[in-house]
């Protein structure tokens, strides 16, 4: 199911960049792009993963599917794709 209110991927990337810059205390969100590698460029390790999950779920009011495999997520763009996929998946699936 795709929600009609699902934002465009570019918008998701921009919003994610802002959140990540705040979370990672970066000077500016401008350096965060869809191609930014979470681990190599931004230093998001397994510790940062819990922050990323929380911020993404809160900011976009979504729930990642319980079968989400974050080990396959490498870039900010991958996260944006995942968020776009989960849009409309706001209901708790537990």
């Amino acid at each position, binding site marked *: 199911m795709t929600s009609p209110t699902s934002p465009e991927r570019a918008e998701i990337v921009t919003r994610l960049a802002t959140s990540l810059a705040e979370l990672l205390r970066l000077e500016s969100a401008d350096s965060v792009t869809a191609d930014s590698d979470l681990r190599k460029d931004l230093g998001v*390790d*397994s*510790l940062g*993963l*819990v*922050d990323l*999950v*929380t911020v993404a*779920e*809160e900011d976009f009011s979504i729930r*990642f599917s*319980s*079968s*989400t*495999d*974050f*080990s*396959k997520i490498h870039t900010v763009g991958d996260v944006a794709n995942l968020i776009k996929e989960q849009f409309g998946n706001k209901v708790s699936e*537990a």
Partner: protein
Amino acid sequence: MAIKPPYPSFETPETMDDFFVAGRNLWPDLASFKSLQFDRDQIPPEIVQFLRSTALNEHGVAHYLGSYFANYQSDFKLRFWSAMWTAEEYTHYIVLRRICQGMDADLTEKDFSGLEDGDYFENMKAYLDRIKVDPSIDMRMLQLIYGVLQEYGAVIAYTAAAEQCGNPEMAAILKRIAKDEMRHCRFNQVALEAMMEHCSEGEKSLVWPQFRAIWGDLEMPTEHIHYFSEIGATDLYTSLWDGEKRSKIALYLSRYFSKYRQYMDSSATA
């Protein structure tokens, strides 16, 4: 075979007392486990190793009771829980040991070597001091946060072992253990929430950073169980967590602890 782990709602209205009642009649069929028989050749070797090392780990939990008592100070309910809980983990040891015996892979005296040598009290204290995010944090809070993580890690490990063992009877037993672990996890949540009612805003703001600190440092206790270091038990335990299971742990714990992030904002603006 995909087994859905027990995911209770965070909002179920249990009280701490409910857990004490629930603990009164566990594993009533324990005696029947004596006759368990498994064909060892049919069980994947990494599962055999997991069951043997986890049996030792469950046995080892009782050694930490003194530390729990110290950290729970004069809190009667938490002290009662730690006694009851270590006994439940010991029951898991008995169950797992019988599985090991049933597949002709029993633990030996050598496997237990080192268990009685260590100073669990000092080691636990040193560990908690190392991961403490604030020297003034209430040790009960730190211990309860640790408990949520530790027990949920156990839920996922036993669920994974149940999925991968290839034997329905063994899988059913491992799922029962996973269910106990989920109840243990839930107790720590309920007790943490009960504690929040008596905490200042400053104290509440420590929960999220303390969760992150423990999450970043999670490993098996290898300090006294030589067998663990021999087989690399941390890797063994976590090797059962593939990317999807690690993600499940991260998702579940982030969602549970995320409600405590709000206190950081309020303490920052206070």
